[in-house]
């Protein structure tokens, strides 16, 4: 899949899924949910302060007729209730509303009502990079703060899984650092080289094409890669960008939106079910696209029986 219009077009034809929205009192969340319902992509249960949900719906110009609302004024308890709906199978997707990411993630990770599996959870930004006419997956810019090598390997495989869900069946993975040379003074370059070697030794199942370290320019620009005489199948053509830490990933993704005017989807991978995790400041369109991405994730995983891969040690 090369763009997010295709995403919406595909999910409009496929089964409608149920979204549990945690702390739903947010104008852009309600506008996105309303649009998703109108396009027959998803139906939502809104969990949060009923009074504030109605106020936000009024200011968004959204009619709540027929919407299911679960009144839970306390935001932390609202996340727990929404997560429980998903973990118990009463909803397919969990979505973050108007709540801080760390409070939301505590609910997602809660041992009792949360969505933990045996594997690591990580966040992936899916960016529609218009100039390159492709989707680029950036991870992890929202959940894992400073992953070590083992965590990066799991984060990488989660992103490969999501790329497959989006129809990028043989993604090229670039592990980013500040430079493309291995430098012991920069641990990100050493981790990147290790991940590339692990892929070469077929430690990742499914096998995937990984290279690094790369500076951003030689990962995404063939001209830059050629200028620096960096070869290989990934250089200049990366589909997945594995960043060294949350700051790098967050800034890269947001720069794609605010400087590059690209559209963005935000999803968690590795939970029992897809989780829509966007910034509160994101537009209703971005939130709608993220809901569509989560619906695609449910549908394609079921249709193709796709599972997240494993690392051999």
């Amino acid at each position: 899949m090369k763009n997010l219009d295709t995403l919406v077009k595909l999910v409009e034809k496929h089964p409608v899924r149920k979204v549990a929205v945690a702390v739903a009192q947010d104008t852009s969340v309600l506008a996105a949910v309303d649009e998703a319902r109108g396009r027959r992509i998803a139906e939502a249960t809104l969990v949060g302060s009923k009074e504030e949900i109605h106020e936000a719906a009024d200011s968004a110009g959204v009619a709540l007729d027929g919407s299911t609302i679960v009144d839970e004024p306390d935001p932390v308890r609202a996340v727990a209730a929404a997560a429980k709906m998903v973990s118990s199978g009463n909803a397919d997707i969990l979505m973050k509303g108007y709540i801080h990411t760390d409070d939301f993630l505590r609910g997602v990770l809660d041992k009792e009502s949360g969505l933990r599996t045996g594997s690591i959870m990580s966040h992936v930004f899916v960016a529609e990079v218009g100039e390159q006419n492709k989707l680029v997956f950036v991870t992890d810019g929202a959940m894992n703060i400073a992953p070590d090598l083992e965590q990066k390997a799991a984060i990488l495989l989660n992103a490969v899984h999501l790329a497959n869900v989006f129809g990028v069946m043989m993604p090229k993975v670039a592990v980013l650092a500040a430079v493309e040379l291995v430098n012991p003074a920069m641990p990100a370059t050493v981790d990147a080289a290790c991940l590339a070697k692990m892929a070469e030794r077929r430690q990742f199942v499914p096998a995937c094409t990984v290279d690094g370290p790369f500076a951003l320019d030689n990962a995404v620009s063939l001209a830059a890669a050629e200028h620096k005489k960096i070869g290989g199948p990934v250089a200049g053509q990366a589909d997945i960008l594995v960043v060294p830490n949350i700051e790098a990933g967050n800034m890269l993704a947001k720069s794609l939106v605010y400087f590059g005017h690209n559209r963005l989807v935000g999803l968690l991978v590795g939970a029992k079910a897809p989780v829509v995790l966007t910034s509160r400041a994101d537009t209703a369109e971005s939130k709608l696209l993220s809901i569509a991405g989560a619906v695609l994730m449910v549908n394609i995983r079921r249709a193709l029986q796709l599972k997240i891969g494993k690392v051999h040690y």
Partner: protein
Amino acid sequence: MKTVLVVDDEADAVEFVKAVLEDDETKLVSARDGELGLKAAREQRPDLVVLDVQMPKKDGFTVLAELKQDPATSSIPVVMLTAMGATSGVAFSKSDVGEFIGAEPDAYVEKPVDPATLKATVARLIGR
């Protein structure tokens, strides 16, 4: 003699395709998962591949993408046969597959398959 490779993890499905397509001019070979299917396509260079979508080890979409990306196999016609719509409600059209994975099969047929349609589709694609 033309060779058709059937890639499907269900023995019944392979037998069905064999019964429909095998004759004096068409030899059928089979592979039981996506990885073995890719290997067989690369080694045996069949005249056509009949490909299931939901398979262990490597799904049919990935196999299709790899076949069409590899210059050695890109010109082999691929007929996808799938029960995906019936089993998961996630139905694709031929062009949907093209937009989804960037490689379009030469034909895309939802199961249950009409034998006459399959025979005619294959005959058209292998130049009969």
